[in-house]
């Protein structure tokens, strides 16, 4: 009820004349005093004034944003600390929340629904999927609320509003760094070695962060203007998660046509997850479909892998299956998604720059 009754965008001009004039005696002589002769608009431009509710041009806006970098980082850090001040375990929740998620998914998908079948080191596989997707998911949910949450700040001070969604993504990136530490421990305990491939984490996280910023900007504007959006967003994100192979391998889907599998595999979430898995897990690199010359027999053997009958080495035979999408193109797509998201998101957010304060 109360949400329904908020003030929103100024609308069409109407009833301009059907309200009574002010009853107090107006004094035209006083009211027009101190007014320049001629058009006020021309007068304003002569004195170098600009419309208050106008957005700056793109380049000027980017420059302003760059100057606010300190603010963005300080805001992100402060929010990060404040977020958990009321919880007794404090910032420990940053690690505990994804771990609990992993535990739930392992119970449901790994044990009950058996999606772990045929995937070596399934726990590492699952944890990477959950953590990487969690980064994007949390970024979008928080940026969809950033404008409403920061309304007092927006109203009090002039600054490029894109700083706010940017800061919120930085908060999630800081949390992601923490999650990565937990991740390293889990991977080593489960049994994958440290390799030079681990360095690929840096470009992967960078690309994923750019992607998150881009979509975060888009979501921030949608969330500020369409009330229903933040209600809808969790469902969109959950659907996306189930489509992106977070807790199962897209390669194991047998009832999905190859083209659809390729599309699933190349969607940004699945892409960043897969790149991360291949960078961190030797077991994934060795069993990744398409890495060995095709062999239908061994591939079929993997599809029918049973932990009771077959030796564990059969789990690696997925490497003989055809690739869901050309692995050589993964990086191109990863860069493409990031750049596309940033360009579209930034432009979309910037277009409404003058309107974020009206609430």
């Amino acid at each position, binding site marked *: 009820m109360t949400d329904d009754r908020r003030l929103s965008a100024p609308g069409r001009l109407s009833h301009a004349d059907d309200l009574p004039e002010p009853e107090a005696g107006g004094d035209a002589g006083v009211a027009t005093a101190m007014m320049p002769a001629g058009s*006020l608009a021309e007068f304003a431009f002569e004195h170098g004034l*600009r419309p*208050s*509710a106008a957005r700056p041009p793109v380049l000027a806006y980017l420059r302003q944003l760059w100057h606010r970098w300190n603010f963005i980082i300080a805001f992100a850090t402060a929010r990060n600390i404040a977020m958990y001040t009321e919880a007794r375990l404090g910032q420990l929740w940053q690690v505990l929340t994804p771990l609990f998620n992993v535990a739930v998914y392992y119970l449901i998908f790994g044990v009950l629904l058996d999606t772990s079948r045929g995937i070596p080191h399934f726990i590492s596989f699952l944890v990477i999927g959950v953590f990487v997707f969690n980064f994007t998911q949390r970024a979008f949910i928080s940026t969809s609320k950033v404008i409403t949450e920061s309304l007092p700040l927006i109203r009090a001070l*002039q600054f490029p509003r894109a700083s706010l969604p940017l800061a919120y993504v930085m908060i999630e990136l800081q949390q992601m760094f923490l999650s990565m530490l937990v991740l390293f421990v889990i991977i080593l305990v489960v049994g994958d070695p440290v390799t030079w491939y681990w360095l690929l984490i840096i470009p992967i996280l960078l690309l994923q962060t750019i992607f998150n910023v881009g979509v975060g900007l888009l979501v921030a504007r949608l969330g500020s203007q369409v009330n229903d959006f933040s209600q809808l967003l969790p469902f969109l994100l959950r659907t996306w998660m189930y489509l992106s192979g977070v807790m199962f391998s897209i390669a194991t889907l047998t009832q999905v046509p190859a083209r659809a599998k390729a599309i699933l595999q190349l969607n940004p979430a699945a892409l960043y997850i897969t790149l991360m898995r291949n960078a961190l897990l030797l077991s994934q690199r060795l069993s990744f479909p398409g890495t060995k010359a095709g062999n239908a027999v061994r591939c079929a053997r993997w599809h029918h892998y049973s932990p009771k009958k077959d030796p564990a080495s059969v789990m690696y035979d997925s490497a003989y299956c055809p690739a869901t999408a050309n692995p050589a193109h993964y990086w191109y797509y990863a860069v493409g998604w990031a750049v596309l998201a940033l360009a579209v998101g930034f432009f979309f957010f910037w277009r409404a720059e003058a309107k974020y304060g009206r609430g």
Partner: protein
Amino acid sequence: MVVVDDLHIVYRVYGAGGDRGTAATALLRILGRKTRGSIREVHAIRGMSFVAYKGDAVGVIGRNGSGKSTLLRAIAGLLPPEHGNVYSTGEASLLGVNAALLEDLTGERNVILGCLAMGMTKQEAREKYQSIVDFSGVGEFIDLPMKTYSSGMGSRLRFAIAASKSHDVLLVDEALATGDAEFRVKSHARIEELRHQAGTVFLVAHNLEEVEQTCNRVIWMERGKMVMQGEDVIGIIDRYIAASGGKPVVRDPVTGRRVDDRVPAKT
């Protein structure tokens, strides 16, 4: 400097009127059976034009709901005009009475973040920090979250943060009302200073004495329109008091100062 040219502002209120916002009415709306009859337009500013020059402190007076706060938000560039336009030099900063910056952060962090958001460097923010804290008079409470502050403390700190930078246009919406006497003296001095730095200050206040003391011009609004405006602050305020049925203020015939302090300042 601010130019307001035939400004109209229209709010749209959703969920007003007979629509009770139930699931059924929402469904009917989606199905297109019922147009959104629940939208009501409120024409808050109905054609205002004026010019405020550098160094002006403009008091905006009028009854509740006359559009004073809306006018300030429009000048700050927060409300896109329906018709006409507002022109200003550079950045306008609006201080509203309910505008906490970041409630769950400490006053200290609010100071630093506010400074950085206004475009200061880290170095500048650190240099200004102590003077802001001193000015606000928040004292030892500076390391507590801002949501624990009294409304007076909060608004003092916000004013101190915003006033630490010289703004081209500073808009103060009842923000000083909650401050104590000592803080009022300090904030008046700061507003004077901002005026001398070629800024323009707008002050919305129901405390007319405050307007008399701070402003060199006054705008009297009624139902979204200007009734009177000019530099004869005392004359306009007296007519406003007369029009709203208040008790006339007894003034010294020479200085125009209020003679009887017992006359309530609020109308």
